[in-house]
């Protein structure tokens, strides 16, 4: 996805990570964007009524939490690591810890293990209180483009 890598280069030059989300239609639609105002890369999903999964509680749809944790991991890999390709998700496991109330959700990701081709990332999402996460995730990403990968098997 060269548009995203171009956007990454522009974002780095300007020091404005939020520009990364502009290249991803789904991130715009979901209002998910990275921010680095606090010196740490965080990803925010702005609350809007279309995120609701349970109107009775009310609570944010679990699928959207999984989606934003995945985006948080991708933004982290793009911004904080020396990636030359767009990370390709292989799998993700999301643990739902608490129901998410109808307010913004913030997530932070960290690399648990960086391999040559595969990266293991942990991400955590919370709302007002960081010590009370609403969901966590572990995900694997391929970070080497197919072109320079060794012949498979």
């Amino acid at each position: 996805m060269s548009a995203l890598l171009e956007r990454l280069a522009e974002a780095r030059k300007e020091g404005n990570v939020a520009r990364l989300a502009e290249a991803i239609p789904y991130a715009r639609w979901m209002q998910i964007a990275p921010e680095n105002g606090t010196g740490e890369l965080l990803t925010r999903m702005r609350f809007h009524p279309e995120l609701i999964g349970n109107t009775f509680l009310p609570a944010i749809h679990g699928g959207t939490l999984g989606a934003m944790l995945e985006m948080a991991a991708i933004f982290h890999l793009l911004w904080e690591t020396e990636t030359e390709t767009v990370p390709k998700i292989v799998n993700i496991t999301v643990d739902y810890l608490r129901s998410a109330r109808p307010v913004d959700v913030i997530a932070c990701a960290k690399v648990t293990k960086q391999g040559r081709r595969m990266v293991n990332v942990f991400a955590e999402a919370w709302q007002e209180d960081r010590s009370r996460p609403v969901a966590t995730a572990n995900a694997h990403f391929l970070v080497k483009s197919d072109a320079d990968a060794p012949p498979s098997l």
Partner: protein
Amino acid sequence: MDKDARIALFQQWFSDNIPHSKALGLKVIGASRGFASMQLEWREELVGNPETGVLAGGPLTAMLDGCCGMSVATMLKAPEPFATLDLRIDYVRPAEPGKPVIAEAECYRITRSVAFTRAFAHHGDAKDPIAAAAGTFMLGTKGKPTRPPLGDKS
């Protein structure tokens, strides 16, 4: 209750009444005991890579979560609230741009507290999946029952 009436009821409970499912445009296409199926139309807003038009992982995650949840609902003897405990998704190949995605979920075991489900997403051939999912659900959680009161026993 006949098949179409059951599908219409689940469509109401698992898409129309859930704002995010409605926003995605999830369509219930199958509902029987222990089994749920949904369809998601491709559209530009759901794309992760604008150069290829391939869907982002997010819409598939939300769809598979919803579909696994619906398969749990088809197993409940009485309506009862439940919530996703965990969800694993393997993205086995990219979704093809422009094509609708079908999800098929099965609730293969239900206990008093936990329900176990698995699901596949594909473009019409279940043997050639785009994504595989495994989800567990906690039963008897807070809130309102997430199952329509069915007229018959199934």
